[in-house]
């Protein structure tokens, strides 16, 4: 069963922002990554799912129900953690969590205690006095205290230190084992690689591709930058697997995907002054996805 099903979702506001014709689905029990640079439309998509904003056209269903029409009913089973958390400053953590729990018609006090212990959160502090990371922890507890069947995370790791991030991921994996579906939006590829089964890549409001993480990992991209002593022939590195080739006097740079030995052999044949081999950042992978012909996908 598909927990989330998005069909041709479009939201336009103003000129540049928004999403166009987004379609994908999230299956029951999977951790689904939603990845793209800032401003690509991740939050817009998520906010539409949560009926915070209304789509211009298209529709989305959650648990098989329309996400706008049945919003209050659906939200009983959704936990949401935004990238920036804001709560009523003059409340105590304990009171805020109680207030949150009061929206769900079940006793959440045990779960609150459990989660607070795992996340090492002091329940007696005032929200106002918390650091960014601690506020985030409140958000995590707040989003999971009613044991939701679907957890939606919008860039959740900002502000968490690596140790907490680790604990948080373990918590998510544990929930996932219980059958909870997770939609995880992020602009950090490594997070998504660590957690997710499948991933949708979004750029400039459009879905570029939906792939299994395993496939993405097979696509081992490397970024090369080579400085040569003499000027190089423009097409010297124009071999299979090379993308974004740029030749600039003595400096040649490109992104390579494929058997790395091929490139190394080519490099060995020329006199080089310097060499950099790096993991390409996400932006460059997106560039690559954009240049891909649609029929090759």
């Amino acid at each position, binding site marked *: 069963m598909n927990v989330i099903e998005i069909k041709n979702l479009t939201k336009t506001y103003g000129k540049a922002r928004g999403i166009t014709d987004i379609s994908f689905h999230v299956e029951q029990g999977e951790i689904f990554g939603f990845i793209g640079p800032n401003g690509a439309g991740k939050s817009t998509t998520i906010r539409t799912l949560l009926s915070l904003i209304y789509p211009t056209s298209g529709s989305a269903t959650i648990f098989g129900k329309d996400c706008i029409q049945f919003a209050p009913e659906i939200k009983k089973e959704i936990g949401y953690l935004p990238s920036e958390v804001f709560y009523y400053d003059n409340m105590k953590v304990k009171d805020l969590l109680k207030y949150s729990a009061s*929206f769900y018609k079940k006793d959440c006090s045990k779960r609150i205690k459990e989660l607070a212990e795992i996340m090492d959160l002091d329940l007696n502090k005032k929200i106002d006095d918390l650091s960014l990371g601690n506020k985030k922890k409140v958000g995590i507890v707040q989003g999971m205290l009613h044991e939701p069947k679907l957890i939606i995370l919008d860039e959740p790791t900002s502000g968490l230190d690596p140790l907490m991030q680790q604990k948080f991921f373990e918590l998510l994996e544990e929930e996932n084992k219980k059958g909870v579906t997770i939609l995880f939006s992020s602009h950090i590829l490594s997070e998504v690689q660590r957690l997710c089964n499948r991933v949708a890549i979004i750029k400039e409001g459009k879905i570029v591709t939906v792939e299994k993480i395993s496939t993405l990992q097979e696509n081992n991209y490397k970024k090369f930058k080579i400085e040569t002593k003499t000027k190089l022939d423009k097409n010297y590195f124009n071999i299979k697997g090379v993308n974004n080739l740029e030749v600039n006097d003595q400096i040649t740079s490109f992104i390579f995907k494929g058997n790395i030995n091929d490139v190394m052999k080519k490099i060995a044949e020329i006199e080089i002054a310097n060499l950099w081999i790096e993991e390409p950042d996400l932006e460059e992978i997106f560039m690559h996805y954009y240049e891909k012909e649609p029929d090759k996908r």
Partner: protein
Amino acid sequence: MNMLLHELKAYRKSTIIWSFSLVMIIVLFMSFYPSFARDAEDFKKIMEGYPEAIRNAVGFNLGNFFTILGFYCFPLSFITLCGAIQAMNIGTSIVSKEVREKTADYLLTKPVTRTTILTAKLLAAFISIVITNVVYIAAASIMVFQVKTGDFSFELFLMLSLTMFFIQLIFLAFGIVISVIVPKIKSVLTVSLAIVFAFYFVGMLSDTTGEDLKRYFSPFKYFDTAYIIKHSGYEASFLIAGAGIIILAIAASYVVYSKKDIHSV
């Protein structure tokens, strides 16, 4: 219910402060009455020297000014102005504070409809205003009975006092409709003060000309205290206008709020 209690709690402090301030004002004003009543005749002569337009503008009526109810109308117009500011403040802030403090995401991702949210907020604002009025009227009644020099109609006194409540409801409705339409209100007090005072001055201007039609432009003029004292009743056409404004504004707020996009911060 949980939201209603939460909102009431959030406005507890402000309700207490407003109620207390209004009580202080009325206690102060009414404590002048005994000495004022003694000097009544001299004062009457002075006031007769002023042109009628000015007397009307400050809400002055020679005929009944020196009865306790007539005297009460004078601080009442000032109290009403304060009350209108309070109501406008609550109305404007009750929805917009979620946007300003960025808690809208939190509230709107809970399993409740936006209608339920707005109803809880409206009810909380309404209750705050009712509490303020109950406290104020109780204090004012005690004061009036303390300082009275002769008999007066308590019923009439209540009718006069309730005009503040009605005007507050109108401004509450104004405030709410503004807070759902304007995307982000940075300073609630600036907005509410500006609007309340604008209406107040419009009301003062309409008084100097004495045209009935102009009175519709300012809720402050919907309840003419001289008329109430004379006829022991409200003017029906203005009651209808007030109710119409409230119903329209609240209905519009529901429509706008349930349809609007809540943008991220």
